[in-house]
């Protein structure tokens, strides 16, 4: 029995800097992996920003775990969803461990520091960050830094992960490991929404593909329904063979 963790109902959004979105109706089931694909400027990141409550809808509603996202406090949201933004720069030379530990901030006061340390240690090992733990995050390569932020997001232990191009900067192995982590997350009941340009890799392992085009949802559904030569070519506005 599944239920929607995230529901966007007739949502439109206008913002000066981001792409305008129109009439978005998307539902993400709990325990599923959804990927958002589409050409540059089609509104993928804007859609994710709406889901993250980084951007308020102009009309319509965004429901997170049955609650109106706009009526939740910052702290309540932080317990329900974790967000990986494209920006991975950290302004000051904090250590890798410091940055990963920040992922526990929403739970301060509700979990013990022993529990926090255990969660942090486990995720850091998963992302192979143990050897980098005491390095300043400002000294890392793009791929290493991305892994630090993915770890920070996982440590947050939110039921919903919203990841904007988590795979960029990662090498082939890094992407394979990321996919494995995301599938694990889904298997254990979590939900994941990823924005990606790598539809050929992420599309087939997703439960749902959201294909964006010009600020609208072009097609949404199972990978086999969306990832077709016809719909992709039409969304990208150019012949595209699947």
């Amino acid at each position: 029995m599944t239920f929607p963790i995230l529901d966007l109902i007739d949502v439109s959004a206008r913002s000066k800097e981001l792409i305008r979105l129109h009439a978005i109706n998307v539902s993400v089931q709990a325990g599923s992996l959804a990927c958002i694909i589409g050409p540059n400027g089609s509104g993928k990141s804007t859609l994710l920003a709406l889901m993250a409550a980084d951007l308020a809808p102009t009309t319509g509603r965004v429901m997170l775990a049955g609650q109106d996202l706009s009526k939740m406090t910052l702290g309540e949201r932080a317990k329900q969803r974790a967000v990986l933004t494209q920006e991975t720069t950290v302004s000051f030379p904090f250590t890798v461990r410091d940055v990963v530990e920040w992922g526990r901030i929403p739970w301060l006061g509700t979990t013990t520091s022993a529990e926090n340390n255990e969660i942090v240690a486990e995720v850091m090992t998963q992302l192979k960050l143990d050897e980098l733990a005491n390095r300043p995050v400002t000294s890392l390569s793009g791929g290493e830094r991305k892994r630090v932020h993915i770890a920070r997001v996982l440590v947050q232990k939110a039921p919903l992960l919203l990841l904007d191009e988590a795979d960029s900067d990662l090498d082939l192995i890094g992407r394979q490991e990321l996919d494995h982590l995301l599938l694990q997350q889904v298997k254990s009941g979590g939900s994941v929404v990823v924005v990606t340009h790598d539809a050929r890799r992420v599309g087939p392992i997703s439960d749902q593909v959201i294909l964006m085009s010009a600020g609208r949802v072009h097609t949404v559904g199972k990978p086999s329904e969306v990832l077709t030569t016809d719909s992709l070519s039409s969304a990208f506005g150019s012949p595209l063979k699947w």
Partner: protein
Amino acid sequence: MRSRPAALAVILLLIVIAIAIGALYIGVADTTTSIIWNIRGPRVVMAILIGSGLALAGVLMQGSLSNPLADPALVGVSAGAALGGVAAVSLGASFNTAFSALGACAGGAIALAVVTSISIRNRVPEVVTLLLAGVAVTAFAGALLTVLVSVSDSTATRSVTFWSTGSLSLTTWAAVLTVAPFVIVGAGISATMANSLDVLSLGDRAANALGVNVSAVRYRALIAVVLLVSVGVSSVGVIAFVGLLVPHAVRMVIGPRHGPLLLISALAGTLLILVTDTASRVVANPIEVPIGAITAVVGAPIFFILIRRTRASQGGWA
């Protein structure tokens, strides 16, 4: 390793006490009780207030605006505060009164509001824009200040040189009592925000996603900056680079965590102003070298290094 900031704090505190006592007695004039109590005493306490205030303000600005190059004087807050203080005086207030203090705070706050609102675009605080806006605000406020000083009775508004390079030589106990409450409240506010400032290093969106109310943190930090800097400036003039240099030097020793960084920077800033102020009155005795000139001679070259380093870490500025 974790005990290092605490040990360093104790050591710095002892050095500050030693130098403060030394500063009371160093000098060619007779070290009579009256000179120590009425002239050097308030000066030493003011050095502590100014040094800790500027250094804390530097930490808060750098942390809340994710800008390693921020300094109260470089971004125009000090110039705004000086103008506000002088404006209050030319309207009839006396220096080191509540009215001149409020004038200084208003000037500092307006300057800070202008530069931050220009430099935050699409929820990203831009490093270079803040400094450029600071140049413009400093030039504008400096020009108005010059006009005000020129048309007023110069003994009332003090000289333009006093405002641009600072001096603690006019410090009285009344001045100390005017500045102290603002610095103490500002320091109190900054003490509550170490953890949120840490997370702001991730950028606005990521910090927000962790439940940190970024705008609220930023407002609180910038209000503290105004309190820490403005009234001090209206009393001793503009002393540049302290807020830039101290946090950087301290970060190199103890790392970037804002809890220890705030504490140690306050002590190190105090030490820096105590030492430079004592130097300013003894090196060329009987002439006083303006303290802001000393901090700028040291600070400006280091600023160049920091510009290069920040530009490299940000991947270059167009």
